[in-house]
């Protein structure tokens, strides 16, 4: 409270208010210019490439489809690895972990993991997952260069590690924020620990947990630096698909052991290394707009869940 009042003192008075108003104005103006720029140029390029039939092709002709599929596949694999382990870990920390130094140490570790620069984690992914774990798996199975090379799998594993702290910390907070009286209320009615958790805590924490997951997903989609080492390419003639058969039904699935295209990397290359100067100078607006739309969609979802969560918790206070 003291901090807050001192802080708000900064914005009192005429000059303070003018300063605050100016800051808000700058912020909104920058956002508006950014959005307008990307949306205007992006829609121009997209409609152009649609009319020329280039949207679904690959490569520097601006075919975006493979990059979209690549980003979605990478995100999907990351989510599969990150969400169950992250949420379970948060549940352990919030509900089961004893109150001791080891638990405090674990929390510290997670908070620190959240601060590791993504490029450092990318290097770690290459060194540890690809060259160590991948080669090790290959040797174990008598294979050569199947697991021991950069691929969607190791990129997803690395991105999962990168965003795991977000999932863990938000899930942990939403569980811990539920007032003690709710637990007591369930226990006093004869609930077991599991009943208390699954019937009262989880339903209340769910919107908060989902918010964390969606934010992590949005970040995963936009992450560029770590995947540089982990199998992202600018051009692929086709999407690597393997058929996995579930009984009688063969289901085509993207092969996670292959390289991939991804929107953020495509933006990077198109923007920095245009092969035909002048011709594709604006093409990078296309993946930019698509990526922006994907992340905005994810964030809107997050806001919706956050709103529901606040409403549910607010009434308890």
């Amino acid at each position, binding site marked *: 409270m003291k901090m807050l009042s001192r802080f708000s003192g900064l914005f009192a008075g005429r000059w303070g208010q003018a300063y605050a108003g100016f800051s808000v104005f700058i912020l909104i103006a920058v956002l508006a210019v950014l959005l307008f720029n990307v949306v205007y140029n992006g829609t121009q390029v997209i409609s152009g490439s649609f009319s020329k039939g280039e949207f679904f092709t690959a490569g520097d002709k601006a075919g975006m489809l493979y990059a979209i599929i690549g980003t979605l596949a990478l995100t999907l694999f990351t989510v599969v690895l990150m969400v169950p382990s992250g949420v379970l870990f948060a549940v352990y920390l919030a509900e089961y972990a004893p109150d001791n130094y080891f638990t405090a140490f674990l929390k510290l570790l997670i908070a620190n993991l959240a601060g590791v620069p993504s490029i450092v984690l990318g290097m770690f992914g290459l060194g540890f997952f690809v060259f160590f774990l991948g080669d090790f798996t290959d040797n174990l199975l008598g294979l050569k260069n199947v697991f021991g090379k950069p691929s969607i799998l190791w990129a997803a594993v690395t991105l999962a590690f990168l965003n795991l702290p977000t999932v863990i910390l938000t899930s942990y907070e939403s569980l811990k924020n539920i007032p003690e*009286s709710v637990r007591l209320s369930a*226990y*006093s009615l*004869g609930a077991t620990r599991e009943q208390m958790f699954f019937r009262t805590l989880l339903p209340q924490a769910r919107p908060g947990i989902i918010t964390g997951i969606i934010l992590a997903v949005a970040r995963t989609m936009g992450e560029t630096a770590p995947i540089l080492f982990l199998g992202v390419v600018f051009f692929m003639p086709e999407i690597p698909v393997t058929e996995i058969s579930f009984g009688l039904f063969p289901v085509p699935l993207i092969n996670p052991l292959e390289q991939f295209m991804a929107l953020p990397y495509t933006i990077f290359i198109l923007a920095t290394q245009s092969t035909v100067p002048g011709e594709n100078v604006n093409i990078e607006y296309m993946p930019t707009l698509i990526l922006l739309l994907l992340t905005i969609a994810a964030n809107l979802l997050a806001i919706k869940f956050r709103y529901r969560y606040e409403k549910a918790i607010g009434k*308890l206070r």
Partner: protein
Amino acid sequence: MKEIKIQINDFNLWYGGRHILKDINLQVKANRITAVIGPSGCGKTSLLRSVNRLNELIRGARHSGEILIGADEIHEPGTDVYLLRKKVAMVFQKPNLFPDTIFENLAFPLKISGVKDKELISEKITAAAVKSEIWNEVKDRMNEPALNLSVGQQQRLCIARALVSEPEIILMDEPTGSLDPVSTAKIENLIYDMKKDMTVMMVTHNMNQAGRLSDYTVFIAQGSVIEQNSTSRIFTTPQNKKTEGFISGKINLFGEEK
């Protein structure tokens, strides 16, 4: 002499290193209302929570001595603590409904007991809601959020929810502590009617309430039972000077003498 429902023998409770309840010996008579009074922090809530073993959830809580309900010692190995808490229900000072519908709140105790039969569920929650005199106010709103009700209604719904599993004993920790006079009167009537079916143990800070409602009164100070007797005796001819001081208001809620 009325049958004894709860018998507490040489009971001690510690939170970590702090000795909270000291050598408690206490009898609670069946189908009677027993009021527990005493200065703030003397251990009334802790005593109540010992009877349904809710204190076990507090880290570092230990106890010695025994608590018998009927003939059964509740700490005996093999005691089903979840069944115990269904038979010894509890109502708290602040209503503590789940942020869910009215129906889900009332059905919770049945659902965790594995009751699936929809008709049985609706029969039981109706009976509990009627007894708690909340039925008329909620019967058409079963699927509305419970937290939309007024605080007084919420507290009566909490009582209804506690009655759904047909407890033998109901522990009430200042059940009207956060309510207006009208809601308080409603709940006092409820408590009075509950004697027919169950044993009531009630903490209150309101001496008038204790005098009006209870058959027996227990006075606790600093974790020890100072005096227990029929309410009329305690309020007219207290044996202990501390009791007299507390009831007459010469000793305030914080145990300080005026």
